[in-house]
């Protein structure tokens, strides 16, 4: 098992290298002069020269790559053109709201989607099942921001139950203001994630329910709850957890949109500000950051399989 852990960790290295190489090449191989595109329509010649200098585009490509990888290894994600601050500093300033929003979303999603999916699989063909499936098709069809605005319109503007926008830190303002501000963003961001996880849970539980050991468990008179929890859900855990990991990519995309709808000063909002200010180093740094997080989470999930499923022994 120890050798499996080592192997799995080593296997992420080529993926990380490819992400880094791709992000590096994207800037260098894009058609036209990236420096002038980044500088925008009203830039002077000096601006373009300055940006080209700042991005290090004047040097030979191999020299650029070595320097770039070298600084990446030291945790340097580049320097923002607009604010002149290191991208890592900017990420540090903005990470808390994003982290909180993703955590609440994942917790809420798992609490809703796994029971829903299990119920749908157990009562396959019933109205509960149809309802869950309908929700999961619809959840994939409504754009995140439209959902956000509908929620704001109904809950915040018409009913005035919750604040329209903004974010309050749990540590500075306390738990209640934090919750009041995070409920709607969490609901908004959860919908597509719940659609995904509920669907996957239903499919995996349905497959397990057809196994011989489930029939055996029922035959020996075990209660349905125990059959579902102890036999079905436990054995269906691996594919469900895998999809939660893969779904993180979906979540990262959704965070960018949700944060701009609710005006949350997190990493997603940083992306939007960077797009508007044409601050490419920030976009690049955030791509690297999010990709590494995604790879890391999926590595941890892969390694956790040994806990979920005792059959997996390497």
């Amino acid at each position, binding site marked *: 098992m120890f050798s499996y852990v080592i192997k799995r960790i080593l296997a992420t290295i*080529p*993926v*990380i*290298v*490819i*992400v880094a*190489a*791709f*992000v590096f090449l*994207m*800037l260098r191989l*894009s*058609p*036209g002069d*990236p420096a002038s*595109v*980044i500088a925008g329509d009203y830039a002077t010649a000096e601006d373009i020269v300055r940006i080209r200098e700042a991005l290090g585009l004047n040097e030979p490509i191999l020299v650029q790559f070595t320097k770039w990888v070298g600084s990446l290894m030291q945790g340097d994600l580049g320097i923002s053109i607009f604010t002149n601050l290191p991208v890592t500093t900017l990420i540090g300033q903005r990470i808390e709201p994003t982290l909180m929003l993703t955590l609440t979303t994942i917790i809420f999603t798992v609490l809703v989607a796994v029971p829903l999916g299990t119920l749908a699989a157990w009562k396959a063909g019933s109205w509960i099942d149809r309802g869950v499936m309908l929700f999961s*098709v*619809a959840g*994939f*069809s*409504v*754009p*995140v*921001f*439209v959902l956000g*605005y*509908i929620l*704001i*319109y109904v809950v915040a*503007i018409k009913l005035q139950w919750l604040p*329209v926008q903004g974010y309050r830190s749990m540590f500075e303002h306390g738990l209640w203001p934090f919750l009041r501000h995070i409920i709607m963003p969490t609901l908004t961001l959860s919908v597509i994630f719940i659609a995904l996880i509920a*669907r996957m849970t239903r*499919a995996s539980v*349905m*497959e397990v329910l057809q196994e011989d050991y489930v029939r055996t468990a029922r035959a020996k008179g075990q209660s349905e709850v125990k059959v579902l929890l102890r036999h079905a859900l436990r054995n269906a855990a691996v594919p469900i957890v895998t999809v939660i990991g893969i779904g993180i*990519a979906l979540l*990262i*995309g959704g965070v*960018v*949109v949700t944060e*701009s709808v609710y005006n949350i000063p997190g990493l997603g909002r940083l*992306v*939007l500000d960077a*797009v*508007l200010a*044409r601050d*490419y180093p920030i*976009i*690049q740094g*955030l*791509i690297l950051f*999010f*990709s590494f997080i*995604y*790879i890391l989470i*999926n590595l941890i999930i892969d390694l956790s399989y040994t806990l979920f499923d005792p059959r997996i022994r390497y």
Partner: protein
Amino acid sequence: MSVDANPQAMEPESVPAKAELSQWQIIRSHPSIIIGGILLGIMILIGVIGPLFTVDPIALNPIKRLKPPQAEFFFGTDFLGRDVFARVVHGARISLVVGLAVSAIAVGIGLIIGMISGYIRVLDAIIMRIMDGLMSIPAILLAIALISLSGATLATVVIAIVVPEVPRVVRLVRSVVLTVREEPYVEAAIAAGTTLPLILYRHILPNTIAPMIVQATYICGSAMLTESILGFLGAGIPPEIPSWGNIMAEGRTYFQISPWIIFYPGIALAVTVLSVNILGDGMRDTLDPRIARKM
């Protein structure tokens, strides 16, 4: 294919083995294809001929700006007095073009790379590592970066949405190729001295078509969503083109007083994507019963 040539065949007890069912009968047993198809057909019709019957979507009328929905403006007007209804109808055309273009290009590129990766073992490991890397970059961020580097035009937006979709197609094609390449008829073709391009074209490619059609519909739906998100974030198609994402992006500032600017294009987008997804689900159940049992 004759419709209702033999009404008796529709009766459950006289239904022949699945392979003998006509295409029409199979479609009949999956209402989601019909529902999705009709809905999508309506949206395509609106996109194709709708713009002929509306007023100019970019005509300004500052006196009548931010008017709520009424007889003259079905969907109200935006902050420049432009008719939101006309803009939504024109937006249908743009969304559908983006969706179809992205799915066609992504499937085309993915097919070629996937077949090479699945059939030529030497390249497989390298190609799949590159695809793994691409897949770990969040799609929307990748698209934003590509657009901010090459400037926002309709073409760059399409390409920026295609790039993150390609790895998913490659993986699917590769998995089909890996199973098909072991089939006896492929061995027979190799033994008969068939050249590699011909094997890929004649024996491998036809097997990928059914899963590819299903995949293409899903890509079409998600491409339309991504386009609107990019437009909404201000990183999409140039703002003078009335795409649904752009209309909604412009409605953001006025949301509290004029929510219709966001709601109507949002509903149009949701209905279109929903119809594509329903159609995709129906086709998946019809074309690939193996997956249908699992999902």
